[in-house]
């Protein structure tokens, strides 16, 4: 009996992530998430709308005509600030710094391109293995393009190094049986990449497109 000594140092394979987690990861791999930007826009919009509505109501005297007659720079504010100018200056500076930092962080996150994570494998003690995101994606795309009824395929790694996922775009021919293509994508392409990378599962988001039929070449 021969023993495979090469595997003796390898740790137990990581447990397969739950189905729910896989589904969630594949769902978020469909496209770059814009949720943060959207909610911040809505929040700022609500604040502006509230201010606009509030001031308009004030103008029309809904809050009382004496309140409406007060100046914008209310003397109450001036007096409050004058009693302890240092405190208010510090508050203003701190508030300004916080606002500037938040704004810059938001810009950085908005503008940063979507990461293409590499896949890190466990190679044992003193050995690190990193499969570049381009290599893995190209291998998947090349194999996907060989499937019948698939005219073109494109793939990229998305997510993070800890939780990578694949985003694949398939251009199908007009007469494609979509169910069959997806089935073969799962059984062949996804299975192959998982076994190559020794992953129990790799979430995948598939986008389907239809290939434009090329007009038949004219023969002179």
């Amino acid at each position, binding site marked *: 009996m021969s023993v495979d000594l090469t595997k003796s140092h390898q740790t137990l394979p990581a447990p397969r992530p739950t189905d729910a987690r896989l589904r969630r990861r594949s769902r978020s791999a469909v496209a770059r998430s814009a949720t943060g930007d959207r909610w911040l826009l809505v929040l700022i919009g609500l604040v502006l709308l509230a201010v606009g509505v509030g001031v308009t109501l004030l103008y029309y005297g809904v809050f009382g005509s004496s309140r409406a007659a007060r*100046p914008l720079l209310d003397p109450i504010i001036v007096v409050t600030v004058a009693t302890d100018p240092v405190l208010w200056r510090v508050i203003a500076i701190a508030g300004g710094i916080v*606002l500037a930092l938040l704004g810059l962080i938001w810009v950085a996150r908005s503008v940063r391109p979507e990461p293409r994570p590499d896949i890190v494998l466990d190679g044992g003690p003193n050995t690190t293995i990193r499969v570049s995101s381009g290599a893995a994606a190209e291998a998947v795309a090349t194999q996907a393009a060989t499937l019948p009824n698939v005219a073109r395929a494109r793939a990229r790694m998305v997510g993070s190094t800890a939780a990578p996922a694949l985003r694949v775009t398939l251009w199908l021919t007009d007469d494609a049986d979509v169910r069959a293509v997806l089935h073969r994508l799962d059984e062949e392409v996804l299975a192959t990449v998982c076994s190559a990378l020794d992953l129990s599962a790799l979430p995948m988001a598939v*986008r389907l497109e239809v290939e434009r039929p090329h007009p038949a070449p004219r023969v002179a």
Partner: protein
Amino acid sequence: MRALLRVLAPLLGLALAAAGVLVVIEVVAAWVLPDTEGLLVPWRPWSVTLANLSWNENPVPGIAIGVGVAGLLLIIVGLAARRGDVRLEAPTTAMTVTTSPRVLARLVGTRVRASDDVLSASVSASARRVAVAVLAWHDAPPDLREVIVGGVKELLDALPLRRRPRVAVSVRKQEGVR
């Protein structure tokens, strides 16, 4: 809409950051060098104007309405910038399959236009509804609409769609000779 979001979000972030930086600069400048005009922002004449303007005078309502409208527009962009993906059934939980309404419209359009009785067709599709407006030759059979509806439903059934969209077909006849 999402393209607009991509542009607005960083711009708003920059505006907020600029506002924060301006506040810090002006307050520090006013503290260190008192009795001087504002460094970048003429806040002394501004504060005089604000002290002499009350809430019930123009141009306050105009500005307030402008601000409110801007806020409303931001809310609309934020809420409307959703992906209109059409979801399909996947063979495994590790996979999510989507396509765009444009692709669905293409497939339906190709199928509808394949009929000889159809002169032209325009399709608008979403995950919930597919609407086809057909212009038919005047000698088209009277049951053309039912035939087209049947064909589109057959096409949609062949796709593993998560939810089958409602199909609405309208047929108009073209006068004149083919």
